[in-house]
Structures are given as C-alpha cells and as structure tokens.
C-alpha cells in the first residue's frame, strides 16, 4: 500500500536535511510502528506523507497504491485515503467542529463521486463515533479544538479518522498527553479500524501504546533513515535496552 524509496527531504526555510535516504514498505492490513529518539525525523515523515509545504523532497519517491503522491496537495492526498492524526492538532477559532466535520466528510464524498450525507445520517455517524470514544457531544459544538484538553484533542483526531474512513492512517505520537484511561479508549478506537484493506502507521516514542495496539512490524528511525526493522519483539527490546544498542549497530 505504501512504499517509500530512498527518500531525502529538507526544511524549505533553512535547507536542513531531515530525511536522509529512508526506505519503508507497509502492506494493506498491516500495523507498522515507527519508533526512534527525539529528532530522528518521525514527525517530519508524517508531515511529508500528508503533504505539508514546509518540507521539500529532494530525492526518492513515495508510492501509495503504486502511484507517486509527491505532486498531490494535502487535500488530494486526504481524499485518496491518507489520514494524519496530528501530534499537536490545531486550534481553529471560529470554525465550529460540527461544521468542519460535515464539510470534510462531504468534500471527501464529493471527491469519490458520492452524494453529500443527509443531516440526520451525518449526525448519527458523529454520535455513534463520539459514543465509542466516550466523547461529549457538547464538546463538538465548540470551535475546532479550541479549549480542548490535550487528551480531548487526541480523541477528536481519532473521531475524525473514524468518520473519514481512510485507507492509510498515520498516527503521530497519539499517545502523548493521554492518561491511561484515555489511552485505552483511543487504542480501542484504533484497533476497531484494523482491516485487511487498511494500513496503520503508528509513530511513537514509547512502547506503552504498543501494548494496546499490537503492531505487525516495528521500524527504528534514526537520523532520517530506517536503521532497523523487526516484529513486535523489537519494541520490547528497545524498551528494555534503549535505542543505544540499535543505533550503535547502525553507526
């Protein structure tokens, strides 16, 4: 489903190279975890997949279902099924959350040639998804993410993911800022989305989240490259021994 080949990318503003020859393949149905120390390029990778303009790909390519996505803008990538759950979701004053959800869902439907959702059907879907994530509907009447706690923002991201039904989900440090109860709820939300035709990439610092969302593969990112790949036991190994060992081998 996703194939990243020899990717090099830098920050447009100052030219700093962050991704330096990264290779990664994720198949449909797979849950892949990307781990690595601070500054290894994990969040940058998630932004590049979503199409943020602050980064520039200088070499290599990203194939999604066999097609390069480098020329697609963020909206085109999203309507083709790529979803990024942000580490720090933006607060957008003045945009009502419900209005935003409706526009986003209907824009995606439009791009797929489907009719816009009728209001009752839209409301039902939002209510059902919110109930699963133990979210209060009153929260969704507020402006998008404004005044949400860290945990509420993360739940709102997963809510959007459920409603938009993407094919490639990228979760950037979704566990940060969550207490243990919220972590369980969010993990259940993600696990419910596991499907044979869907791939999920979990970017995380800690093994903690992977106790709840068990990955099929684990990849260690360091200095903009995948330096080691393995199965879920690699995550346990990292937890026990730290990154030093793995990084040492790579260096």
């Amino acid at each position: 489903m996703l194939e990243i080949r020899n990717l090099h990318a830098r920050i447009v503003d100052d030219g700093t190279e962050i991704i330096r020859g990264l290779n990664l393949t994720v198949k449909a149905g797979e849950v892949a975890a990307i781990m690595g120390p601070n500054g290894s390029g994990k969040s940058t990778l998630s932004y590049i997949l979503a199409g943020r303009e602050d980064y520039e790909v200088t070499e290599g390519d990203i194939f999604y279902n066999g097609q390069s996505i480098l020329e697609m803008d963020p909206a085109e990538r999203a309507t083709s099924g790529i979803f990024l759950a942000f580490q720090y979701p933006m607060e957008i004053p003045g945009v009502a959350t419900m209005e935003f959800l409706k526009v986003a869902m209907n824009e995606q439907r439009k791009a797929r040639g489907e009719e816009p959702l009728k209001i009752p059907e839209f409301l039902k879907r939002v209510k059902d998804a919110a109930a699963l994530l133990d979210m209060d509907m009153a929260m969704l009447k507020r402006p998008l993410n404004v005044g949400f706690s860290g945990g509420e923002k993360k739940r709102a991201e997963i809510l959007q993911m459920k409603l938009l039904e993407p094919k490639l989900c990228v979760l950037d440090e979704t566990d940060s800022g969550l207490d243990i109860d919220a972590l369980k709820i969010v993990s259940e939300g993600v696990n419910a989305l596991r499907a044979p035709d869907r791939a999920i990439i979990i970017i995380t610092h800690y093994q903690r989240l992977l106790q709840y969302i068990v990955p099929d593969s684990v990849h260690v990112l360091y200095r903009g490259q995948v330096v080691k790949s393995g199965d879920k036991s690699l995550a346990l190994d990292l937890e026990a021994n730290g990154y030093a060992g793995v990084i040492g081998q790579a260096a």
Partner: protein
Amino acid sequence: MNIHTTPQRTPAETALIDAFSDRLSLLPGDGTVMLKRDDAIEAIKSGLPTRRIESWHYTDLRRLLTSVPDFDPTAVVKAIAPVVEGSTVLPVLNGVSSTKVPDIEGIAVQRLSEKLTDGSIAPGLDPYGTDDAIGALNTAFVADGYFVDIADGTELDKPIELQNLQAGGQTHVRVAVRVGAGAKAVIVERQAGEGAALVSSVSQLLLDEGADVTWLIVQEQPDTATHLAQFKAHLGKNAKLTLFVMNAGGKLVRQEIVVRTTGEGADFTLRGINLLAGDTHTDVTMVLDHAVPHTASTEVIRNVVTGKARGFFQGRINVHQYAQKTNAKMACNTLLLSDDGEFSTKPELEIFADDVVCGHGATVTEIDHSHLFYLMARGIDEKTARGLLVKAFVAEVIEDLDDEAIVEALETRLDGWFLAHG
C-alpha cells in the same frame, strides 16, 4: 494679514448646491427646520472636507466624491425580506417612508416628514462638532425617515428593521429612535439598493435609564453607490447598547459612529466587520465620549480585504476629566488577502481622568498556513478551506452577539458575500 481664498468648487459641490436650489420648494420643514437647512448648505458651500481635516484624514471627500446623481422621484424599489425572520419592517423606499405604520403595543411610529413639517425634530438637526459634513448633507436634503418611540418598560419580542432602500439617484434619510427606561429592543438598520446612488443616512438613538438595545447596521450597497452614514447615540444611566456594523458593499462608504455615555453604569459594545472587495473605499470612524464616571466600552473590528479595496478605521475614545473608573478596550484586526488591498487603523485615546483602564490593539495578518494545512489534510480543497478560515475570522465577532436567531441571520448575510466574492 490672512488672505482667504475659496478654492474652485468641484463638480460635485456645484451639483449639490444646484440640487438644493431645485429641491428647496419640495423639502418639508417649518421655519426653524428651513433655517437649519440654510446653515447646512452654507457649510457645504464652504467646501467638502479634505484630508487636511484630521477626522477626514483617510477620506478626502472633496477629491473622492467625483459625481453626484440627480434625484429620481420616479424610481421604484420594493421592500425586501428582513435580515432576521419575523421582524417588523419600517421601509424607506427611494427616500420615502410608508404611510402605513405598524400598530405595535408600546411603540409609537411617526413619519419623519411630519416631524420636519411641524418642526419638532429641529433640535436633532444640529451638526456635531465642526466638521460634520454628513450631518450637513443630510440636514440640507433630508425629506423623510421615521421617528420611533419605544415606551418605558416595553420589551419587544421581535426586531424592528428600518429598511433604507435606494433606487439610484439621491436619497437622504434620517431615523430617530428613543428607547424608554428599562425597555429592550433589537433594531436592524438595513442599507441597500440597486443604483448609482448618493445616500446620506443619519440614525439618532436615545437610550433612557436601563434601556437595553442591540442595533445592527447591515450595509450591502452595490459597488456603484456612495454611502455616507452617521449613527449617533446617547446612553443614559445603566443603559446598554450593543452596536454591530457590517459593511459588505458600496463604492465609497463612510460610516460614522458617535456615541456618548451620559449616565453612570452605561455600557457600550461595538462589533464591526468590514468585508471589502473590488476597487472600493470604506471608512469607519468612531468617536466615543466617556463623559461620566463608571462607564465601559469594548470595540472589536474585523476586516477582510480582497482585490484593490481600501479600508480605514479611526477609533477615538475621549475620557472626560470626571469620567473616573472608565474601562475601554478597542481592537482592530485585519485579514489581508491580496497584495493590492490595504487597511489602515488609527486609534486615538484622549484621557483626562487619572483612574481609568484603556487599551487598544491592531493586527494585520494573512491566512495561517498551519490552519490551512490542517483543513486540507482532512480533504477540504484549498479554496473551500480558505473560505472557511476567512469566514471564521469574522464569524467570531458575530458569535459575540450571543443570540442564536441574530447570529444565524448575520451568518447568512456573510455567506452571501462570500458566495459573491469567494
């Protein structure tokens, strides 16, 4: 020795002076009113204001008013649906009020032409200050409008919409509203039309003790119209006025807001949005006098500028010497969406009291790229996402009004503008 030279009259000045001679016999008014009209046209004869007059710094009316249309008494325009559904509409069509006034308990409505004829409105025709060009233009030519008196203690359950619709040519309209002690009302001042018009419009509002009024100015003139408007209010003891101004049209627009707190505990809120497009000029000028102790005001103006539009906000707050414990806050924020547009802000605080809290701030921004990215990352195309963000920027001010029916009605007007100018 000073040598006074009268500069050569502009075509617009000449046209106004000629029009006055032509119209004089048709204008209603007793002796006092007619004398005030004479004074007013004398003021115009001495010249329209230029940028050398500080309060007209951004709007050099003498230079900008390039032509003056003729009066067209035969032009026809029909009343339109009110902004807030179910409102009582008081129409002024092509400068003429309706002979049928609604019969609502607690409200007395009179045609302004009658108040001019019997002279009872005369004191209200005086200019304020020395550079009151809009007041002078209106006093010289005003023929109609309404006088509305809301009795003490009346609580209106639906808004009143004063609908001033031009049909091209010149219209000069005035409305005077008194809101009695403890009375509560929502009043919409609608300014629209379809012609190459010159409009002067003056609204006078008097709030008695404890009156509570929300006044919404919705200005949607076509881009062929010159719209010169003045809103004047006096706030008595514990009176509360929320003034909302939306400018979403007009070729040359000047909206003056002149507010004075005359009773302790008075509270004034101004919320304004200027939606500016095309090759247009819009000037909102406020003069607020905190004239007694313990009064409060907040002003928030939000502007969206596209095309080659030019916008200006002058906000002057005078805190008089005895007006201790005044609390005044003013903010003007602009979203600049084109390289050719401009918006200038001039806050002026003149404070003679020593125990007050006054502040002002101004920002100019573009669309926040991280917000745009977030929306696009959910599949919303760039144009739609930009539209959402621009609307959000001004919708925040509307939501401050805190009344669902009004918020919804104004957002509909907003959507209309974005549809036409997105």
